[in-house]
């Protein structure tokens, strides 16, 4: 049983790492098309390593917008990683010096895979396998995409823009369909998050709607303290 959950955590992690890592091609291409150098694109993937923030900065450079505002927008998108860290801190047991390397891996994909696992051991395995496979693929594909921009077609042609949302849906699915007393609350949190984010989209800068999805969760927690 233990080896089964562990190997399924490894499979999940590798699948997400490789599939989402391919989007690094899109980032490398978008960054260089936007006017970033190959080195700047690679530095972002190596050190920022959080896709949404990286795309946001490239988008502002492309549009010729204010770089200060662009950097601020990218950081705003990164705030959700702080919220993930609150949940992962105990799960990963990353205290003391160990948290410095582990922190770099706290992003959407690793959190999603970790939380989809049935126990803590599998969650840790899922986190680290996703982190390592995604880090390697993301950086390799960023370089490929940045260097080969002229030869890489628009990623939308291959339907790669549907892969991101499909990934998160596939990861959340088991938790939202489980026969578990907690499922109703999770569904309420998910539905509330979707509603608030879509309603806010026209009115606030990109990045903020996803953060506002935390507001209905706050309401759920305050209403039903446990």
């Amino acid at each position: 049983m233990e080896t089964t959950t562990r190997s399924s955590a490894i499979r999940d992690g590798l699948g997400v790492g490789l599939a989402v890592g391919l989007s690094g091609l899109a980032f490398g291409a978008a960054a260089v098309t936007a006017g970033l150098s190959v080195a700047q694109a690679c530095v972002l993937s190596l050190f920022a390593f959080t896709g949404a923030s990286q795309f946001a900065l490239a988008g502002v450079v492309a549009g010729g917008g204010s770089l200060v505002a662009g950097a601020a927008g990218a950081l705003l998108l990164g705030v959700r990683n702080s919220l993930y860290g609150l949940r992962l801190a105990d799960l990963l047991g990353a205290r003391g010096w160990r948290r410095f390397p582990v922190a770099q891996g706290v992003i959407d994909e690793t959190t999603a895979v970790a939380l989809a696992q049935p126990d803590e051991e599998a969650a840790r395995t899922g986190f680290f396998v996703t982190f390592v496979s995604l880090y390697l693929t993301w950086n390799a594909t960023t370089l490929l995409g940045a260097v080969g921009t002229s030869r890489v077609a628009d990623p939308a042609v291959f339907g790669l823009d549907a892969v991101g949302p499909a990934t998160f849906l596939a990861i959340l699915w088991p938790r939202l369909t489980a026969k578990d007393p907690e499922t109703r609350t999770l569904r309420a949190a998910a539905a509330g998050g979707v509603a608030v984010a879509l309603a806010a989209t026209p009115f606030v800068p990109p990045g903020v709607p996803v953060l506002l999805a935390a507001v209905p969760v706050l309401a759920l927690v305050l209403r039903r303290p446990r």
Partner: protein
Amino acid sequence: MSVWQAVVAVCLGCYALKLAGLSAPRRVLDHPGVQRFSALVPVALLAALIAVQTFAHGQALELDWPRTAGLGAAVLALLLRAPFLLVLAAAAAVTALLRLAGL
């Protein structure tokens, strides 16, 4: 601000944000309200991310039919209990084919 300065600022800031959550003090992590909040918040954020990545383009809401159909294909694959990579392949393939068909 030069592009390099913006790149370095984003790199340092994004890392600091990741570290901040992991480094929250014990008394914050042990608070029952915080535990309840942090258990639910990733689900809400990831669900919001699905919606925004599918239906938002910058600040505009848009219905991109190929992408929406791709997500529909993913739902169908999940209902049929398809393995993870097949779910992603179905989403990408349906989206790509509908774009190819000029929708």
